[in-house]
């Protein structure tokens, strides 16, 4: 089996006439955190959404090239999109608590799969909330409406909700964009622990966050992957002038 | 598999509306058209003698068509000014608490059964009309007044939506060049919302034209061509409503034929209204903003006028 959990090969994506991604080639190592960063409209969100095919909903677009998960093309005809999305979970920029109880939120994905056993659900909910560093805050009120949680708690709930699916890959699109520094720190800590079990791709909130959590990094600009490599190398000796300009804050 | 089945069922539900429309059209036409062809379209529409059960039956609906036209136009004359006024009031003038009263009031007006309206016309309005103007009381005026109120909710609702949809900038722009609030409303907002307002009028016409029970109760049901607004009359709908229960054979066919005429008229009105609201796009144009801008320019407040305020 390849070292790479995900291989992106000459991948492109366009919303109608608007090309959002061009010829992206990128590999994601197993049990690592890859940070995709770059200025706005670079295509980060589009790439993340392409990896679990959330791009299928919403405006119809066209893709080219391949994305392989464990060597298997996720755009292959006949592939079960629902099971792909269970293997590849997504956390969005804005925290979303579904208007149901905390427990139901976390159990949501498993129940969709038909898991009914209360004890199994209970275990999964607890494990996931613990892994997302939320358990201690909500253990006494699992039946409370999830919308009563704070923004930072809701975002950790979103992470727990994905973890409860027992996915293989977790995608996070600027997960701390709407959060305060303390909540941000909690989530970043959780991520570093989580990579032992999962492969993680994050579009960080800023370059500093990429530096704090990433093993590997990729710099995206105007729909192209300008440069990719280990975080230590890319942040210290970038090969491309545009990467250096961005990191040192000269634009973006 | 289950997904597929559900998707298919939902698709079928979405088809029900258009399918029922087709089935309704088919059965009304099937039951009514033969008679129209037998007596001839011209004769059917222009003959004002309706004697469905005589020795030599006559099927002419001209009197009913005229009755419908009088009543509908009368209802529009009452309902449109009032409705437009209420729409402008709710969209532009009403303090929030009053707007919060008017909304459910209109909703209730829309919810009150036609038979109640008809009854009010019959017991309150008709005697007043008779006392004030003479005539039988159960007359075109009576029916038009009540129908005008019955179509009020449709007119207000659609016009108000249209008025509210006018971009803020139009209002601000007009006020900025020194127009009074009323000038802004009358010269800028109303013209900008006119397609919606026209649609509301057309739909109001459809409502008035189609109303049956209230008209039966208020119009006196005289099979005659009305000569004055104080006369009794019969409409396409009221004649169907009155006679369907006991009609048979040719007579019943003739009532369905009347239904065909009514249905065609209503569909034409619906189609027009849909074109005006842009729900049914028959041709694509980028014109609205341009034409509205032209209206704005044509109705701009002259500089001399601006200073005086």
């Amino acid at each position, binding site marked *: 089996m390849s070292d790479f959990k995900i291989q992106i090969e000459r991948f492109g994506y366009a919303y109608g006439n608007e090309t959002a991604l061009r010829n992206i080639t990128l590999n994601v190592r197993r049990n690592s955190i890859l940070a995709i960063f770059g200025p706005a409209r670079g295509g980060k969100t589009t790439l993340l959404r392409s990896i679990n095919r959330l791009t299928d909903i919403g405006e119809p677009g066209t893709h080219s090239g391949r994305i392989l998960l464990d060597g298997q093309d996720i755009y292959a005809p006949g592939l079960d999109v629902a099971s792909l999305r269970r293997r590849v979970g997504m956390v969005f920029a804005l925290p979303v608590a579904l208007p149901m109880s905390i427990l139901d939120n976390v159990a949501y994905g498993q129940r969709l799969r038909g898991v009914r056993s209360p004890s199994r659900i209970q275990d999964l909910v607890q494990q996931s909330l613990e892994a997302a560093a939320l358990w201690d805050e909500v253990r006494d009120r699992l039946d409370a409406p999830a919308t009563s949680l704070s923004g930072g708690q809701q975002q950790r709930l979103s992470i727990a909700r994905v973890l409860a699916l027992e996915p293989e890959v977790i995608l996070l699109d600027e997960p701390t964009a709407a959060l305060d520094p303390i909540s941000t720190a909690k989530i970043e800590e959780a991520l570093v622990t989580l990579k032992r079990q999962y492969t993680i791709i994050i579009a960080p909130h800023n370059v500093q966050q990429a530096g704090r959590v990433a093993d590997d990094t990729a710099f995206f600009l105007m729909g192209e992957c300008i440069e990719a490599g280990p975080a230590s190398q890319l942040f210290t000796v970038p090969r491309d002038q545009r990467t250096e300009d961005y990191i040192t804050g000269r634009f973006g | 598999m289950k997904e597929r089945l559900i998707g298919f069922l939902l698709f079928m539900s979405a088809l029900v509306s258009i399918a029922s429309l087709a*089935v309704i059209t088919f059965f*009304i036409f099937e039951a009514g058209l033969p008679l129209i062809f037998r007596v001839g379209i011209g004769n059917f529409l222009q003959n004002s003698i309706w004697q469905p059960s005589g020795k030599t039956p006559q099927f002419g609906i001209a009197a009913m068509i005229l009755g419908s036209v009088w009543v509908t136009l009368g209802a529009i004359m009452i309902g449109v000014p009032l409705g437009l006024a209420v729409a402008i009031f709710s969209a532009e003038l009403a303090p929030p608490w009053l707007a919060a009263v008017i909304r459910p009031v209109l909703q209730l007006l829309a919810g009150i059964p036609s038979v109640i309206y008809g009854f009010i016309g019959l017991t309150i309005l008709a005697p007043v009309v008779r006392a004030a103007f003479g005539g039988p009381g159960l007359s075109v005026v009576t029916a038009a007044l009540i129908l005008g109120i019955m179509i009020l909710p449709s007119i207000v609702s659609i016009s108000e939506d249209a008025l509210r949809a006018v971009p803020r900038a139009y209002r601000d722009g007009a006020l900025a060049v020194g127009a009074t609030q009323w000038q802004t409303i009358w010269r800028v907002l109303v013209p900008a919302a006119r397609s919606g307002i026209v649609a509301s009028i057309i739909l109001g016409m459809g409502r008035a034209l189609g109303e049956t029970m209230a008209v039966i109760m208020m119009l006196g049901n005289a099979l005659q061509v009305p000569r004055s607004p104080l006369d009794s009359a019969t409409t396409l709908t009221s004649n169907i409503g009155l006679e369907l229960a006991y009609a048979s054979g040719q007579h019943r066919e003739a009532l369905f034929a009347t239904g065909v005429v009514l249905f065609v008229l209503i569909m034409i009105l619906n189609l027009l209204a849909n074109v005006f609201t842009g729900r049914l796009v028959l041709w694509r144009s980028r014109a609205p903003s341009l034409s509205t801008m032209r209206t704005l320019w044509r109705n701009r407040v002259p500089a001399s006028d601006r200073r005086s305020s």
Partner: protein
Amino acid sequence: MNRQLSQRFAFGLLWSAASATIIILAIIVMFIMVQGLPYVNLAFLTGGPIAQGREGGILPAILGTFALGALSLIIAVPLGVGAAVFLTEYTRPSPLTTIMRFGTDSLAGVPSIIFGLFGFIFFVTRLNLGWSLLAGGLTIALMVLPTLIRTAEEAIRAVPVAYREVSYGLGASRWQMVRTVVLPNALPGIVTGIILSFGRAVGETAAVIFTAGTALNIPTSVLSPTRTMAVHFYILAVEGISLPKAYATGAVLIATILVINVVANLLITRGVARAVRR
């Protein structure tokens, strides 16, 4: 100066129009209530009519009204909500959806007498259901379908896109997403549409009289003919059977409509769809 004056005048007219509308409603409701309520008592509500309604109560008409309303909703609600879900979640705007919408809009504009004609020739005669609850229910179901579709669509569109993304993102199939996220959150709006549709069924006369009939007995099956309150009111009033009983029936009818509207409005103000006032 002139401009200020004309504004004064115009605004005066607008205020009068709005006040007139409110006063007209008040007159209608008060008139029927004041004339009718004195005759409404328990015996009237729970008793059967005597001599075509000249004496006695209106229990069969009340039951007929509710049975007809319920039956038409049982038929129309799944279709209406299904159509709304299809139009919002299962398809993109296309010529096909334009046709579907055209069908809904046109159906909304078809007058009740046409529904009456159709129900009579098709359900009563062709399908041989006779004057019956079922024929009436099917006819009214078609009549209220556009209202149901519109309110459900509005309510569904108001459900945040983010909920859908989360649900899909967690591996929901389309129907699972609809069932667990869209429908629960659109429910209050859908219920509003259902209540308003019930109101239409209660107030309808022209379409009911030729499909459900005018029989004054308590319906025992969906094939029984029946008479609704609105039809009963019409017959009492027009055939001059009993004016006091007509007023009393009118009062019960108006009270029912009032309750329906109040309930619908409570739901609306609890943050859901705007009612279809048309």
